[in-house]
């Protein structure tokens, strides 16, 4: 049995194909899968994609409740945070940038939670605070 050039070409092609199949998770990690979920008063209001190729986007939001809290939510690459808020405590702003599935930003006067959802098995079922 002798290898011909053609055989070699096919083999190399297949090896390259299998390598890139395994590499795809490293080159494009969770590309379409991570998102920030904004829940207002128990209902999902919207989801924002979190992607390493994301450009910075600012989203102004008026939250329900007697306080009429105005906030600005920013997503950039795979992070989300509250840039400004008219709420009294500004705990949401102080929380800073979040990017991991168990993290969350809570705004009590605005009855709002922002949390991260991603694919893959979660390592924990919940977090004690």
């Amino acid at each position, binding site marked *: *049995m*002798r*290898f*011909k*050039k*053609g*055989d070699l*070409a*096919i*083999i190399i092609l*297949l*090896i390259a*194909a*299998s390598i890139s*199949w*395994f590499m795809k998770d490293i080159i494009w990690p969770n590309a379409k899968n991570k998102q920030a979920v904004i*829940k207002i*008063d*128990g209902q999902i209001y919207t989801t924002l994609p979190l992607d390493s190729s994301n450009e910075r986007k600012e989203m102004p939001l008026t939250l329900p409740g007697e306080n009429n809290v105005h906030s600005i939510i920013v997503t950039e690459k795979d992070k989300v945070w509250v840039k400004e808020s008219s709420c*009294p*405590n500004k705990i949401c702003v102080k*929380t*800073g*940038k*979040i990017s*991991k599935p*168990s*993290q*969350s*930003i*809570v705004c*009590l006067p605005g*009855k709002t*939670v922002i*949390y991260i959802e991603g694919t893959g*098995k979660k*390592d*924990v*079922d*919940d*977090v*004690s*605070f």
Partner: protein
Amino acid sequence: MHLKKLSPCTYLIIFLILTGLLAGCIPQAQENDTPQEIKPVIETTFLMGTLVKITIFDEVKDKQIFQKVFNRISEIEDRMTITEDNSEIIQLNNSAGKKYCKLSSDTFYVLEKGKYFSELSKGKFDITIGPLVKLWKIGTEQATLPEKTEIASILPLINYKNLLLDKDSLSAKLNTPGMIVDLGAIAKGYAADEAAKILKDAGIKHAIINLGGNILTLNTKPDGTYWRLGLQDPYEPRGDYMGIVKLNDQALVSSGVYERYFEFNGKRYHHILNPQTGYPEENSLLSVSIITKKSINADALSTTIFLLGLEEGMQMIENLSGTEAIFIASDNKVYVSSGINDKNFEITKDKFQLQR
């Protein structure tokens, strides 16, 4: 090159590569539809000044179950709050120095527990700390550093021995005018236990109750494995954990300096006030987490043990059956009680060092 028949060797190699590819695919496929992963049903709401999250891992037959739980928590809040006008506790506080107040069995039970832990800690934890909490206003916009004289004038009002309880008539009295009971350190624990009762009565076997970070688990996960609960990293945003605790039908409650605080003149003042000094407790602990069966005990103990500090706190935990604790100190050392081992607790961030 002409595409004639390939040599047999080549076919073999192609076959092996394709088999390898498929073998890589199959485990992923299995992970995606393993029958053990029941998709949990989650509902959230804002009650008791915080985010309440109920996660049920069984089939939810009663669609009203979440609303029933939220209603019960709301009822407890209405009875025990210190901020709404009509609560039983407000009535009790307003009658200080005057008369006994008749209470619901809910409120009486929680007051009793509060007094019990006050006695157990010899006043380091004191359920009548209300005037101090009111003075500091931590967690509100008006939080600011009170004057030493203001604090000094309030301290004499804090004394759990002046909270009189009459079990026969389910009534209570505060002996001195100006005394204020504050159930903030314990009411959520009670609410979680009551929420669990409702779930259990409805036949639910696998669930997690999360009341503002106070965790109560029902049994184990559906597949029999223990629940995995993250322990909050004191330096990071809410939800970011530094370790994992495994629970089976237990409560996990943490008290930490990171939860509620304000900053003044470059110094941080957190919300766990020492009823004897009148200031936030400074004992080089960042947080204390308690693991025990009932959430009301875990809630009260997390504050109590924090106030007692590492040594006295650890001693008390070792003397309480069915109760364990994890302490995180400000030098990032982690101390655990004797029932904690690597089967039920692991640290997931190197920065924190377990001390044995």
